[in-house]
């Protein structure tokens, strides 16, 4: 069964701006999906439907096969944890600790469990020591980390991340990617990410969807997607840097295949050189 499914999902902002236009999207439990697309393509709008923050203008969103309604909305939000693009949309409590504890508290967990989850989440994003700071007085990257910790602490079945690495330093970004992959591998959590950083796409997704002007216009493995240059070009995206280099070498007549991650590229080049 699909854990998330949208049927002909359309969203029109204030009767004028069609941000989503007949989206049919499905995610199976345990998948790792990346959604890429130009600015204004509709990624964030789509994500806000996954936990019922926005309501479809037409069409349907099904979570575990059930349409979102006021009856099951709390369950939906427990199942699907969305980290918004702008951390200011997500943090509001007077201290970092209270902010991270807010979700678990609402789930009615025991104080010990809450304490434990808060500690673990803050460790994960390396914010231990920030417990008593005011979240709105942090640097942008630190805010982002608080927002992520707040959702991690709820242990959702599906983790939806809107530009999780924007504003994080490279060290923090790599750590987050590693964490996301571990959550997927060991806990079976479904991961859906929107990002502009195409270089990390091969690292955190097995499936890539391309959005353009409110429609999904491409869906496949990273290899399939990045092998169709017109599609990429049309949507203001680019290939991962590694792939660009391999392509440039191909053009110069070097017999290499196009690769997307550093390790693969190294091996491919070693093959050619030796």
């Amino acid at each position, binding site marked *: 069964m699909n854990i998330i499914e949208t049927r002909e999902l359309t969203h029109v902002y*204030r009767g004028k701006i069609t941000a989503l236009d007949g989206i049919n999207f499905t995610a199976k439990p345990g998948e790792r999906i990346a959604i890429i697309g130009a600015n204004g393509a509709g990624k964030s709008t789509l994500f806000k439907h996954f*936990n019922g*923050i926005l309501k479809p203008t037409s069409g349907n969103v099904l979570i575990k096969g059930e349409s979102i309604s006021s009856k099951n909305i*709390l369950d939906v*939000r*427990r199942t699907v*944890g*969305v980290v*918004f693009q702008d951390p*200011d*949309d*997500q*943090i*509001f*409590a*007077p201290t970092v600790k*209270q902010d991270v504890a*807010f*979700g678990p*508290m*609402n*789930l*009615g967990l025991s104080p010990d469990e809450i304490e434990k989850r808060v500690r673990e989440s803050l460790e994960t994003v390396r914010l231990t020591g920030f417990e008593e700071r005011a979240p*709105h007085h942090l640097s942008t990257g630190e805010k982002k980390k608080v927002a992520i910790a*707040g*959702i991690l602490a*709820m242990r959702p079945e599906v983790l939806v991340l809107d530009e999780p690495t924007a504003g994080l330093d490279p060290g923090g970004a790599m750590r987050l990617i590693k964490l996301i992959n571990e959550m997927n591998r060991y806990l079976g959590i479904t991961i859906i990410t929107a990002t502009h950083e195409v270089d990390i796409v091969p690292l955190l997704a097995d499936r890539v969807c391309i959005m353009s002007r409110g429609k999904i216009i491409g869906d496949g493995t990273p290899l399939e997607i990045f092998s169709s240059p017109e599609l990429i070009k049309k949507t203001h995206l680019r290939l991962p840097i590694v792939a660009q280099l391999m392509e440039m070498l191909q053009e110069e007549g070097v017999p290499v295949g196009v690769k997307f991650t550093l390790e693969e590229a190294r091996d491919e080049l070693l093959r050619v050189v030796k």
Partner: protein
Amino acid sequence: MHITLTELERETYRKSPIHRIDGRIKILMTLAIIVYAVALPRMDSLDLIKLGLLEVYLIILMMFARLEFSYLAMRFAIALPFGLGIAAFQPFLKQPFIQNFTILYTLPLGIEVSREGALFGIIIFAKFLVCISAVILLSSTIPMSELVSSARRLGLPKELALLFTMMVRYLFVFWNMLDRIRTAQKTRCFEIWNKNVPRKWTLEQIGYTISSLFVRSYEQGERTYQSMLCRGYNADAHVYVSRKKISVPDIFVLAITVVVIGVAQFRVI
């Protein structure tokens, strides 16, 4: 049910003959109509005809302004309850300035419904309705910024204009912050009647919500203000005042309004 400022602003940017009229003229027109309506005698059944005429005139103007019906309905629905309350009491009261009452019904507990009271209630409600219509017309056909600059040209003090502009700007900030905080709470399953959490904790959260609403709006407002300063703004700068001249159609509309009021007053028809 509420209407956001954005929706209000959207209507004000429509293009129509009414929207094109000079802001000063519109303000004066609105004031003239309101003052006339309020000045009508307290107890005079002819009032209703005069007020009816004004209301029809205002509705015609609204049609010329091409305002959406659903929008207007919403505006009225929000405004009316405020005035309805006191008017609804009138038939049961003995107004001190009326000498003789004709009792229509007597309800239990000795409450009496009088014809004069009812008439007075209807008249004040009609006055209220005309005033509200005038205000709705004005606020739907003039953007806030133009309202301020027009009022400036009509003699509103500089400080008031500045603070008024700032306030309107910060309305968006505040509204936005309220929205953000609500979204943040919703995504994390906050619900007032949640039985799984202690009542005390929920109340505390409401307190935090209100304080962070203010503190964060203030800080956002401060940052926004600083970025305005960065772009060369300074508090002493005059609110931008256009030098637009009053044109013939503007005068024409003002004249029509005066004629309508005149017709109402002297019962030409």
